[in-house]
């Protein structure tokens, strides 16, 4: 690890001031950044600890839930407001990592965490356009079970690893960001970028900007999150689904679907939602919705199974939400 300085920001203004310095990076729980520094993939010269910033979890006037960027993942999942109003968010957070990691990890850090692609993580032995632009991508011809089936590019098929962000994408969360010239809100579905020919650019956050909070609008119906993985716990998703469903007179009045584990960003399934809105939730309707959603998919031999797995997981979750899974 390179030598690095450390100090704590007491306010967003202080964090903004220090993060403008070259080589400086914000530090949340450190569960991703410290690991990547030790692996030589991240090389900051200064760390600004932002865990003293707002960790508030509260209802805003419009009924949306406001969560400060410094709130720990475990605190958000355990909060009564989150458990009762947005259970899929609590469940998604609880599906991620281990209790120890969730106690450390912040909401800001979770949004900004980098891919677990083995070739990205292997500084010494693998080519990776995200880590070293222009060097190539070893995932294409390599072990790509954990890689994207949709939204990737010839330059990169790395998956965004967050469980929490899948729930946030499904429920139209907004990321509140502070910068030198004021604050702005970015829709979570736009926050993470697709790789295109610049897989090294991962989010819309500009250098020097600080995430202040996440806002999650209320959703009227029941919601849930389900994760499928290679072992029962403490593993990243092969496929995960966050969904919310409102049925009126036997037809879908409102529906939200987002997938994790299959794309370079939390994948909001807008096409599938459009296909299901107004329909009865039947297997045929779900199959048609999945076909529409994955029309542009680009599966590889190692990960093509994920499209079927995503469809089956969605069916199971919608059955659970419509109370017909017994």
């Amino acid at each position, binding site marked *: *690890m390179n*030598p*690095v*300085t*450390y100090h704590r920001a007491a306010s967003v203004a202080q964090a903004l001031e220090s993060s403008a310095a070259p080589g400086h990076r914000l*530090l949340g*729980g*450190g*569960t991703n950044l*410290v*690991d990547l520094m*030790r*692996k030589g993939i991240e090389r900051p010269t200064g*760390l600004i*600890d932002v*865990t003293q910033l707002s960790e508030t979890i509260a209802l805003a006037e419009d009924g949306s839930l406001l969560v400060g960027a410094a709130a720990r993942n*475990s605190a958000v*999942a*355990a909060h*009564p407001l989150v*458990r*009762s109003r947005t*259970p899929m968010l*609590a*469940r998604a957070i*609880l*599906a991620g*990592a*281990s*209790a*120890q*990691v969730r*106690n*450390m990890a912040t909401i800001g850090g979770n949004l900004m965490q980098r891919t677990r692609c083995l070739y990205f993580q292997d500084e010494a032995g693998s080519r990776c356009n995200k880590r070293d632009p222009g060097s190539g991508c070893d995932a294409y011809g390599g072990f790509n079970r954990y890689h994207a089936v949709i939204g990737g590019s010839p330059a990169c098929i790395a998956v965004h690893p967050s469980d929490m962000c899948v729930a946030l994408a499904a429920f139209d969360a907004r990321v509140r960001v502070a910068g030198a010239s004021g604050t702005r809100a970015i829709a979570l579905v736009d926050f993470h970028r697709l790789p295109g020919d610049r897989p090294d650019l991962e989010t819309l956050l500009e250098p020097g900007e600080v995430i202040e909070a996440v806002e999650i609008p209320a959703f009227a119906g029941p919601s849930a999150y389900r*994760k499928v993985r290679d072992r*029962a*716990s*403490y593993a990243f998703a092969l496929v995960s689904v966050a969904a919310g469903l409102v049925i009126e007179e036997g037809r879908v009045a409102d529906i939200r679907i987002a997938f994790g584990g299959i794309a370079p960003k939390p994948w909001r399934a807008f096409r599938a939602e459009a296909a299901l809105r107004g329909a009865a939730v039947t297997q045929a309707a779900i199959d048609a919705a999945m076909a529409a959603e994955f029309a542009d998919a680009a599966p590889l031999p190692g990960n093509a199974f994920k499209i079927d797995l995503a469809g089956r997981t969605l069916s199971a979750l919608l059955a659970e939400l419509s109370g017909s899974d017994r």
Partner: protein
Amino acid sequence: MAIRINGQEVAAPQDARVSLLDLLREQLHLTGTKVGCNQGACGACTVLVDGARVLSCLTLAAQADGRSVTTIEGLGSAEAPHPLQSAFIAHDGFQCGYCTPGQICAAAAMLREIAAGVPSYVTADLTAPALPTRDEIRERMSGNLCRCGAHNGIVDAILRVAEEQAA
């Protein structure tokens, strides 16, 4: 400021790269806390910071400045073992013992989490308090791997302590 480690004040290291794990083991010779993967995957390095279980390998010592750290040495001793330590012995909750300090620190915090009503991924009703069942304990302890495969004994030991606490 200083880090309070098992009740003793220790100055945070000058070099910000030093992890809490290295501070404990290399500088303070508190070698009960173990180094496994050094990348967050195994839980061998689990300690309590302000009562919450965390991974000392991914915590910079500087991040613990002003906080209170408890390691396995602070939980119990050979003369006055923590109930979990006694239960691990009684239920064969280990073989080589390498993962054990991390398991016990994690379990101590985990039982408090259940008592405080914190849910887990397998808690069916997120709005109701969870109970310390075998399934709950397995899920909640999944951040602590055991290469010897002593998991059944580990879960038995933790269940026993949970029962004792409930009685």
